């Protein structure tokens, strides 16, 4: 039983990271019906930028761990949001009127470009985050030993996801994003600047992805330039699992995938954990082709 709960907390933490990245995929898909393959590389960029800023500015030495990491997170999210905006401007906006396949090819190209840029700048070997940033405290809760960092990752992710959900549901800009996702033409005719909505989506998604990259760096302590591939694939899977285009779906899908993966690794076979995760995806899609929370989209006539 103890192992079960250990794996559950671990799965929740990893799953919440998947969920944060999945939000970026699902938001872009919601508005543009495009899979932004370069999203996983913005996640990698977040992890590397976090490392650079951490070591070059020694924020945590000057401000203490709490404020230091907080400021660091804000900076990383800001920079990655800018990179996301630039990506939209350079790789996607010129292709807005083109067939969707062109944009998909552009997305793949942007992904390769970003990944190789990170490799050229930082080198191909894995880099290590300083290990003294966050306390190594282990909490004893309900008879379990849980590292503080794991709880922090889960809490911070949940706060960001709740914030995004409220922003999308409750504010006028959120309403504009939802309106543009449903019918761009009608949204324009209601006075909504759809290009600005798209730009915003390309800043919000990557800023969450960048934060996820930073958390992976802090949680696992190491980064490498191909790390986006694995996480991106899992997050993409999570977005489909929850119903792509659906924001709560990405959150549920991410967390569920993390837990399934952790349980599979613990009880079946560690080597098969990815296979188990994808098997679950396939089974769920057989039963619900639109994902857990996805709606059947009627083809427009």
């Amino acid at each position: 039983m103890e192992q079960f709960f250990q794996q559950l907390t671990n799965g929740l933490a990893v799953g919440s990271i998947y969920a944060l990245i999945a939000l970026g995929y699902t938001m872009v898909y919601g508005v543009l019906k495009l899979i932004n393959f370069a999203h996983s590389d913005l996640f990698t960029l977040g992890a590397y930028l976090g490392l650079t800023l951490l070591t070059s500015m020694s924020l945590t030495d000057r401000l203490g761990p709490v404020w230091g990491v907080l400021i660091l997170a804000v900076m990383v999210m800001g920079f990655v949001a800018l990179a996301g905006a630039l990506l939209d401007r350079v790789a996607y906006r010129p292709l807005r009127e083109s067939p969707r396949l062109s944009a998909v090819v552009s997305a793949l190209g942007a992904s390769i470009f970003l990944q190789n840029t990170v490799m050229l700048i930082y080198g191909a070997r894995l880099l290590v985050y300083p290990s003294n940033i966050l306390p190594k405290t282990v909490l004893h809760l309900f008879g379990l030993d849980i590292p503080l960092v794991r709880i922090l990752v889960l809490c911070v992710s949940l706060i960001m996801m709740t914030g995004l959900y409220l922003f999308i549901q409750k504010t006028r800009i959120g309403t504009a994003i939802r309106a543009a996702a449903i019918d761009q033409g009608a949204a324009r005719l209601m006075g909504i600047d759809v290009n600005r909505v798209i730009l915003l989506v390309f800043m919000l998604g990557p800023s969450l992805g960048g934060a996820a990259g930073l958390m992976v760096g802090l949680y696992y302590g190491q980064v490498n330039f191909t790390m986006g591939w694995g996480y991106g694939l899992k997050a993409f899977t999570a977005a489909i699992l929850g119903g792509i285009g659906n924001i709560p779906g990405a959150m549920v899908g991410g967390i569920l995938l993390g837990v399934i993966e952790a349980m599979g690794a613990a009880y079946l076979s560690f080597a098969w954990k990815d296979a188990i995760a994808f098997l679950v995806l396939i089974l769920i899609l057989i039963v619900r082709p639109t994902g857990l929370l996805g709606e059947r989209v009627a083809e427009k006539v």
Partner: protein
Amino acid sequence: MSLLSIQRLTKNFGGLTAVNNVSFDVEQGSVVGLIGPNGAGKTTVFNLITGIYQPDQGAISFEQASLLRLPTHRIVSLGIARTFQTIRLFQNMSVLENVLAGCHCRMKSGILSSMFHFPRQQREERAAIDRALKALDFVGLRDQAENLSKNLSYGNQRLLEIARALGTEPRLLVLDEPAGGMNENETAQLVSLIERIRGMGITVLLIEHDMSLVMRVCEQIVVLEYGSKIAEGSPEEIQRNERVIAAYLGTEDG
């Protein structure tokens, strides 16, 4: 002085001239009807006014300022709102949220104040909700505010489209077949609604096939056939006009 002025407007789609050298004015405070047989180019004129298409020739000006080459959302913020021939509500949003999406362009708070929920932004959101509820009250949908728009009856969806357009605070409301698919009772309500909209000082330009509605609410009617204007005048003049009668009923040799 005319609120909207259309001059020598022409739009070609490949070899087809959908709108051919059409000119007419819409006076401030009036209700103008745009009629014609199917395929006459009425909706194309609406799409040209709202910037969905760019004309090949001609000019469109609103309050003396040209609308050419302005993006659609800018035209809306200048004060032109429209509804659609086929209903295009935001299906999975509530009735209230649909109208709020229309209020969007009259609100100022930016992304940061929305994220951090500054007091000024909260006041603005509340004011927008009040405004949206008033618009729903106006069309008689207030008690449906929390329902999903896709669950409304067809006639009520049409009314919601009008409420959503009113949410943008237009000076000119452009209605594309507002009575399409409505029963007699609903059409009668629509007539009184259009009169009340006009009472608010909003100018109305509408496309409609229901001639009894057009003759009742419009003071000026523009008739298109094959993309060209064939007549313009008061309902009485249009009813007597031989070219209009021929276009609608067909002639012996035509």
